[in-house]
């Protein structure tokens, strides 16, 4: 068990290191001088040279990478060009906002997806199953741009019952905050629903066809008890993994949803950093997203191992 976790952590670290290289060198490809970009075309060459020295952009690229990653690891994420203040606190605040939105989306979609999948599995081949499958598959492939736009039209314009801006008035309580987040959370929910529903359905169908389910039925256990005690416990295991691996998608979805609904989360921060060419912010933001993804998949693997006695006792290769 422990060697498995250590190995996974090691691989995760290698992944993050490669990611940091990709991110850093992607930002280096861009022609132009960061100091010139900050000061504008009218600044004196001497001022540009001085700022280059201060930013460290006059040094060789490899050395710059070393400095950058060294600072990153020790928690110094650099100074944002755009805001002229440390990236760390800005990023932490935005990440907090995004987590709130993501949490709401998960709270909505996980029970719905699992219930949908189990209902479909109990009615395999019947109309309910087909409708749920078609709805799930369709919802999963439609971009958030589309679902978000339609939701804004329906709930914000025609029914006029939900706010179309996710930014709540300052000093709002949690209730008001969630009220503003319902609409932005729905596009994320729609995309995730299909994945979770399909996994829960497949897991439940497999468990229903298993020998132990048949034994339980044959020994006279009521169907409800059999499903609850024997089927669900086994079928929901793979679903947990799927939910965790969807974190990566979720962050990508956040970029769009946060821009569309005007919400100050990490997605919007990265979007602004990209449009304003605010490289320290962009590099740090993208790397933080990578870290969130790697940690989430690591937790999913560990959780799966802990919950599955077959793997837990056998030990993992």
């Amino acid at each position, binding site marked *: 068990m422990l060697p498995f976790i250590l190995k996974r952590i090691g691989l995760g670290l290698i992944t993050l290191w*490669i*990611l940091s290289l990709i991110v850093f060198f*992607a930002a280096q490809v861009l022609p132009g001088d960061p100091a010139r970009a900050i000061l504008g075309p009218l600044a004196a060459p001497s001022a540009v040279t001085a700022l280059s020295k201060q930013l460290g952009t006059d040094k060789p690229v490899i050395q710059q990478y070393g400095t950058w990653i060294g600072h990153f690891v020790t928690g110094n994420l650099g100074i944002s060009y755009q805001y002229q203040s440390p990236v760390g606190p800005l990023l932490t605040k935005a990440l907090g906002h995004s987590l709130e939105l993501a949490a709401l989306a998960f709270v909505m979609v996980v029970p719905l997806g699992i219930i949908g999948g189990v209902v479909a599995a109990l009615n395999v081949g019947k109309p309910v199953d087909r409708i749920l499958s078609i709805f799930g598959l369709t919802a999963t492939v439609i971009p958030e741009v*589309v679902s978000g736009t339609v939701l804004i039209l329906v709930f914000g314009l025609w029914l006029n019952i939900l706010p179309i801006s996710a930014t709540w008035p300052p000093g709002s309580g949690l209730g008001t905050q969630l009220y503003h987040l319902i609409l932005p959370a729905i596009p994320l929910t729609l995309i995730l629903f299909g994945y979770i529903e399909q996994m829960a359905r497949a897991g439940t169908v497999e468990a229903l066809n298993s020998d132990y389910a048949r034994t339980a039925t044959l020994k006279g256990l009521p169907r409800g008890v059999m499903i609850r005690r024997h089927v669900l416990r086994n079928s929901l295991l793979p679903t947990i993994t799927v939910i965790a691996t969807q974190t990566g998608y979720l962050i990508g979805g956040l970029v769009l949803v946060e821009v569309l609904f005007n919400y100050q989360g990490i997605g919007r921060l990265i979007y602004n950093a990209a449009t304003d060419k605010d490289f320290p912010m962009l590099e740090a933001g993208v790397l933080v*997203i990578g870290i969130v993804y790697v940690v989430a998949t690591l937790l999913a693997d560990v959780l799966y191992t802990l919950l599955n006695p077959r793997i837990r006792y056998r030990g993992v290769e």
Partner: protein
Amino acid sequence: MSISSVPVESTAAVNSAQAEVRRREFLRELTHQKAFIAGAIILGFWILSAIFGSLVVQDPLAQNLSAINQAPSGAHLFGTDQLGRDVLARVIIGARPVLIVAPLSTLIGTVFGTALGLIMGYYRGLVDDVVGRFVEAFLALPLVVTGILGVVALGDSNATLILVIGIVFTPLIARTVRAAVLVERDLDYVSAARLRGESSLYIMFAEILPNILAPIVVEFTVRLGYAVFTIITLSFLGFGLQPPAPNWGSEIYTNISGVVAGYWWEVLFDALAVASLVVGVNMVANSIETALDA
């Protein structure tokens, strides 16, 4: 007329006859699916719109400042936008950039991904390990974020968008191809080719590749759906495709602020166009996968 050549020829003849039978079975499986027919019709409609749309609709760039933000009517079936341009024309012509960028980027990713996957699966070892790590690193970032990073680094243009999506797809497709190669590489026909003294390149591309085309085709069609998704999202965010030439993502971004004033037609039709194209592509992709599995 050497005797040894006779069995070789007959085997080849049998193989090609088998391939023909398999191809017919595949086509029959495919065309018997309602989802494939529906998806193909939707896809066909948008391809025709992209090619011949300008013969039917008004000029998508023609402004009429005395008729801005007009609701759908007989003169403008989908209404007009904030510059008085015909929304129907912009929706129809807006299919063009997506239908150019998505297939090209997916094709680039498929070609390089297939080559890389063949090398990874055939040689294994170091190449396999190194590329495997890169795949993991790419997977840690959502496609949209990688796209933003790439477009910022390489500059805003259709070519960049094609290149960036192609590059991101390459390791992902390579992973699928690699898995297929691992199954094939220990089969008899590969060993036979090796004993004949064929070069590694010949074995990879002439022997193994024809036998793993099915997963590659599936991968291409599925990725095509992701490519459309990504292009629409990035163009909404203002990366890649640029106005004034219409494209669905930018149209929605430009006109979404008009929704508060009630101009729903300026975004709804674009949104529905995106939805229909994405669903159409995915229906075709799923049908091909089902037909190949059958």
